[in-house]
C-alpha cells in the first residue's frame, strides 16, 4: 500500500519545522521576560526607599542603614503593620500617605500608640487628606511659596519650634503644603501653619519632597530627615515604614456583597459554562483541512477609458469640444440613416434630415452646422435637441420604409 497521507511521526516533524520560527520566538520572548523579571531590582515607586531616581528615598534609606543603624521595615497593609507594631514595641512608625487612606480603626490605634509614647510621623503632600485623617484640629494651610524660577522659599525653624531635629536643621528648602496646628516647626504665612506640625495623632510633615534624592542635600533637609527618622542616640533601631495601599480598603466594605448570598452551585456552574464556551470555540474553530484558494482572473471594465475621458472633458469644462463630438456622431448616424454616403457634407445631411423630420431647414441647419454652445446648460439642451432630431428622423424613415 502506498499511503496517501504522511505518517504521524513525519507529520509532527513537518509541523514542528513549519512552526519552528514561531516556537523559537515564543521561547525567546518567554526567556527574556523571565530574565528581565529576575534582574529587575530597581524600585520605581515615588518616595520608595530603594528608588534611586530623583523622586526616591534611596539616599536617605542608605544613610540611615549605614550610619545610624536603622533598619527599615516596609509594610503595605494595616494588618501587617499591626503585627509589626506588636513585634517591635520600641520601633517608630512612618506613615507615608499617597492616595490610599489607612483603615479608620488603625488610625485610632496609631493615635493610642502616639499617646503612649511611640514615635509616629505622618508624611504626605496631600494636606487635605491629612487634615481629614488627623482630626478636626488640623486644617490645611498655604503651600510653600516659590520664587520666580520655581525655587521654593527657604523656611526657618521658627521660635515656636520645640522639636530637637527641627532645631538642629535650622532651615529647610522644599516645595510642599502646610497644616494649621497648635504647635509646630517651619511656620508659613501668618505663623499658624507649619510644615512640621504636631497633631493629636503624631507629627505630620507635609513636604515629603524634602527627603528625595534630589532635595535631601538642600538647606537643612538632611539634618531634619536624620533627626526625625533616627539621627539621635536614643532613636529606635527599627523603623516601621507603612504605606497604605489598596489592600487596606478591600476588606473595609461595611455592606455585605451580594456575591456572598449566592447559592453554592453558582460558582462551579459559572466555571463549567466557561469551560463549555471554550469547548464550543474549539469544536467550531476546527476547519476541514487547509483554506482553499481561488486564482482570480484580471478584471478590467471595458467602459473605463470612455468613462475616464468623460470625466476629463467635464473637469476641463470642454464645452465646445464636447458639442463638436456629439455633432459629428449625430451627423455620421444621420448620414447612415438617410443613406447619404460616408462623405456627405453637413449641409446636405441637415437638409435631408429637416425634410425627413418635417422641420424647419434653418433650425435643423443651425443645430447641425453651427452649434452655439457656451455653457453646461446649453450643452445639455443641445445634446437633448440632437437626440430629439435623431428620434424624429428615425421614426420618419421607418414609416417611409414600411410604406414602401
Amino acid at each position, binding site marked *: *500500500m502506498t499511503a496517501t497521507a504522511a505518517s504521524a511521526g513525519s507529520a509532527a516533524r513537518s509541523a514542528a519545522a513549519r512552526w519552528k520560527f514561531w516556537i523559537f520566538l515564543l521561547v525567546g520572548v518567554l526567556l527574556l521576560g523571565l530574565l528581565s523579571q529576575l534582574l529587575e531590582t530597581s524600585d520605581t515607586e515615588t518616595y520608595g526607599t530603594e528608588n534611586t531616581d530623583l523622586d526616591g528615598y534611596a539616599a536617605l534609606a542608605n544613610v540611615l542603614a549605614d550610619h545610624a543603624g536603622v533598619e527599615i521595615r516596609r509594610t503595605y497593609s494595616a494588618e501587617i503593620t499591626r503585627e509589626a507594631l506588636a513585634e517591635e514595641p520600641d520601633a517608630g512608625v512612618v506613615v507615608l500617605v499617597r492616595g490610599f487612606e489607612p483603615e479608620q480603626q488603625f488610625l485610632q490605634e496609631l493615635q493610642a500608640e502616639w499617646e503612649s509614647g511611640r514615635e509616629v510621623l505622618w508624611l504626605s503632600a496631600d494636606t487635605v487628606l491629612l487634615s481629614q485623617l488627623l482630626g478636626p484640629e488640623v486644617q490645611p494651610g498655604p503651600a510653600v511659596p516659590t520664587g520666580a524660577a520655581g525655587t521654593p522659599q527657604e523656611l526657618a525653624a521658627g521660635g515656636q519650634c520645640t522639636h530637637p531635629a527641627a532645631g538642629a536643621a535650622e532651615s529647610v528648602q522644599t516645595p510642599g503644603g502646610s497644616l494649621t496646628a497648635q504647635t509646630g516647626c517651619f511656620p508659613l504665612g501668618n505663623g499658624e501653619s507649619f510644615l512640621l506640625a504636631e497633631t493629636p495623632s503624631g507629627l505630620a510633615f507635609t513636604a515629603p519632597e524634602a527627603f528625595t534624592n534630589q532635595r535631601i542635600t538642600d538647606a537643612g533637609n538632611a539634618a531634619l530627615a536624620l533627626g526625625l527618622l533616627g539621627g539621635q542616640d536614643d532613636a529606635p533601631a527599627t523603623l516601621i515604614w507603612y504605606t497604605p495601599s489598596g489592600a487596606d480598603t478591600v476588606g473595609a466594605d461595611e455592606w455585605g456583597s451580594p456575591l456572598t448570598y449566592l447559592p453554592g452551585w453558582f460558582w*462551579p456552574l459559572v466555571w463549567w459554562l466557561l469551560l463549555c464556551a471554550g*469547548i464550543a470555540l474549539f469544536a467550531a474553530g*476546527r476547519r476541514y483541512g487547509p483554506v*482553499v484558494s481561488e486564482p482570480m482572473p484580471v478584471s478590467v471594465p471595458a467602459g*473605463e477609458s470612455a468613462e475616464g475621458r468623460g*470625466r476629463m472633458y467635464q473637469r476641463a469644462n470642454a464645452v465646445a469640444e464636447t458639442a463638436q*463630438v456629439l455633432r459629428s456622431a449625430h451627423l455620421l448616424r444621420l448620414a447612415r440613416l438617410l443613406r447619404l454616403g460616408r462623405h456627405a457634407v453637413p449641409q446636405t445631411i441637415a437638409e435631408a434630415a429637416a425634410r425627413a423630420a418635417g422641420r424647419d431647414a434653418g433650425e435643423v441647419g443651425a443645430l447641425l452646422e453651427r452649434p452655439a454652445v457656451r455653457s453646461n446648460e446649453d450643452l445639455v439642451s443641445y445634446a437633448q435637441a440632437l*437626440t430629439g432630431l435623431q428620434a424624429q428622423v428615425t421614426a420618419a424613415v421607418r414609416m417611409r420604409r414600411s410604406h414602401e
Partner: protein
Amino acid sequence: MITFRFLWAALGASALVLLMPQWIWLWLVLLLGLAAADLLTCASPRRIRVVREEPRPVRAGEHTTVTTRLENHGARSLRGWAKDGWQPSAGAANPLQKIRVAAGGSTRVQVQLTPARRGRLSSQHLTIRSLGPLGLAGRQVVHRVPQTVQVLPEFASRKHLPSKLRRLRELDGATAVQIRGAGTEFDSLRDYVRGDDVRSIDWRATARRQDAAGQHLVVRTWRPERDRRVILCLDASRTSAARIKDEPRLDGGLEAALLVGTLAARAGDRVDFLAFAREVLATASSSQRGDFLSLLSSAASQVQPGLVEADFSQLPGEIAAVSRHKSLVVILTAVDSPALHEGLLPVLPALTKKHRVVVASVQNPELVERAAARETVSDVYAAAAAERAMIEAEAVAAELGAMGVEVVQAPPEALPAALADTYIRLKATGKL
C-alpha cells in the same frame, strides 16, 4: 479534535454540576475520560488510501460528478466525515460527506460539481475526519491527492448551430445560378422539379435522358466548395481581458471561434485554431484525430487573458506555418483599441495579399447605452466620450475595410451568430 456532540455532552453535564456542585472535578474527569476513550478507539485516518478517479471534461455551467475512492487499510472500521477541497468556482454541491469504511473495505465519495469558470479546476486535498464510537472526539488528517477536472467553454452559441448548419445544407445541392461564383463546384445532375431556375437546365443532359416514359428535364446542381482552409486567430492579450457585461472580451471571441470552427469543420473545411498573445498559447486543428469540437474546446479551455501586449508581427509567420494555400483568416481581437494601429494594421497587407481576412470584435453595448443618456451635465460629457470611442472604432473599421478586410462587430451575445453569417455568406459566394 472535538465535536459539537462533545459540547452538548458538556452542556448536559452542567445539570450534574447544578445538582452536585461539590463533585465538579469528578464530572470534568468523566467528560475528559469519555473524550480520551473516543480518541483512542477511533480508526486511524492515516491508514486510509485516497484514490482519485479521472473525471471527464465538462462544459462550464453543466453538472458533473467526480468520484474518489477511499480504501481502508487499517484494522478498524472508520466512521466520520470526508471533505473534498474543491475551489469555489468548481461549484461543489456536497463537498462534505458522511462516510463509513469497513476495515479492509472501500467506499466512494461522489461530489457533484457545477463549474462556473472554464480552465482546469482542481481539488488539492481530501480531508478525512475519523470519529470514535461515541462521536465525542476524533482525528483529522489531510490527504494531499489532487484531482483536476477540465472545464470547457460554455459554448452557449451552440443553439445557433442547427440553423446555421441547415443554411449550409441549403447551399449544398441548390441550383447555384444566383450565387454562382468562381468557387462553386459542379455537384450532380438531377431531375427538374418545379421551382428550380430554368437557367440551370442542362439541355445536353436532358437530351440524353429522353426515354419512352416522356419528358424529363435535367438540371445541374452545385455545391459550395469544400476542403477550404479556415484559420481562427484569437487575440488573448491585454485588450481581451477587458470586461464587457461581467465577462472578459476573450470569452465572447471564444464563443464565436467555437461556433464558426464547428460550422466550418462540419462543412468540410479544414479548420485551424490558434490563440496568441506574445506567443502562441494554444492550437487545435481539424486535421488532428478525434472530434474537432472537443479538441477545440479543450484547447480553448486553457486560454486565459494575459496582461501583455499582443505581438501581431508573428501572425503571418504562424499562419504560413499552418497553411501555404489561400485561407480564410479570422482574427478575433478588439477593434476599438488604440493599440491596433501599431499592432495589427502594419501586418494586414502581408495577410490580405494571400488570404481573405475577417476581423471580428466584441462591441461594448455599454457605450451605446451611455451615449444615449443625456439627462445631466455629467451624462452629456460621458455620452460625448462614448460617442467619440464609437467614432474611433468606426474609423478603424473603415480603415480596415479599405484594406480589403471584412469587419464584424457585435455585442458579445450576438457576435458568434454574426460571424457565422459572414462565413456562410463568404462560402455561398465562393469567396473562400
